[in-house]
């Protein structure tokens, strides 16, 4: 039961990681060929049976995967929000005009 849950979590992580990588990756290349994706796939393959190889903690490898996923997702979302709420900053002249003032003239 607990094992099945772990497997499901693993599958979910894999799916979400692939989705993030697809979004950020180069559209010309196939995702499968990139060395990053191959590294991720290898990690999943290696730790398929158990993640406790080489005296690692119980959830360590999963946590690293989740942390990386968190980083990619947060970067994407903060970029989306920045685009959504983007404004151009007013020039000094326009800001002064807002309150009915003019900029002082320069004396050479």
């Amino acid at each position, binding site marked *: 039961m607990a094992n099945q849950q772990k497997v499901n979590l693993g599958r979910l992580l894999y799916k979400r990681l692939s989705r993030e990588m697809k979004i950020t990756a180069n559209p010309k290349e196939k995702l499968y060929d990139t060395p990053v994706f191959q590294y991720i796939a290898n990690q999943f393959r290696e730790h398929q049976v158990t993640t406790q190889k080489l005296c690692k903690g119980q959830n360590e490898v999963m946590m690293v995967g989740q942390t990386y996923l968190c980083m990619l997702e947060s*970067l994407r979302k903060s*970029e989306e929000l920045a685009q959504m709420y983007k404004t151009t900053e007013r020039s000094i002249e326009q800001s002064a005009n807002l309150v009915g003032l003019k900029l002082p003239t320069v004396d050479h």
Partner: protein
Amino acid sequence: MAAPMNTCKHLIRTLTRIRKPKPINVCFIRKYKTGGEFLYSVQDPLLNSHWLSQNKTGQELKKFYKNASIVQNQGWFEVNLDQRKLRTPTGNLFQVPSEPLALAIATEWNSQKETIKRQAMHLTTLSNTVLDNPMQRSRGDIVRGVLHFLETDTILYRSTEPQEFLELQKQEWDPVLKWFRSSYQVELDSTTSLMPPEIPENTEEVITRKVNSLNDWALVGFQYGVENLKSIILMLAITDKRLTVEKAVQLARLETLYQTKIWGNVQWHHDVDIYQLQSRVAAAALFVHWCSNDMATTHKTTYSNQT
């Protein structure tokens, strides 16, 4: 009452008459603004660090390469942008001690669209900091900077009202504090006053040893994480894989979370803050994990196969 005012006015008038009238330098203000480098306030999450994506002339840097890949060179990993080697801002060769870190950095560079946005490349920035050491910090300086947060740790400071918030703090922060005390065998109490809590000597020693046990690379990442979370305990919980980054960021922002539940959430301020904090802390956590000795290669001549 009037007399001092009159003398004051008189004084100012005489002073201004002596000096030549200065022309008001509007050009200077304009240059400072379009030069653009340090104008934006660091507090505003949206305009934050816009200057990092501008080069010296103030124009945005276009993506000048098609593909970023990694190569291995004498036990270190380098990043190639289209055949050219990536370099740090001071011109040193960009080398990292671990393969997944190099892959993640190459991904950062690959995910740039038309312009380079350095503020999104946290792992690259951290690596540059270690390689260049721009502020000439020694290990002692960094460790001291981290330990400074021990007495000003976020989860140690409880506010006594409103009652609901006090309960929330107990509910969320106490389990982490309990784990910290038991796993490191230290004593550390929370406080409800403005004064920092009394840190027993044993606690300080244990934490110093723990922070000192990180190598140079992991130390920089750890310090960055502590600085962003404003808490050593939360960062230790992340590096010990006890908390996820999302949960730790939530705990670090508990008060803001409580207030937004009552007064409403402003997407372009609060959510942006959450995502930026999460990306920074996640980058710091990954940096610490990937640069710690069991993942990184330490020999320069041979590459021992890990994991």
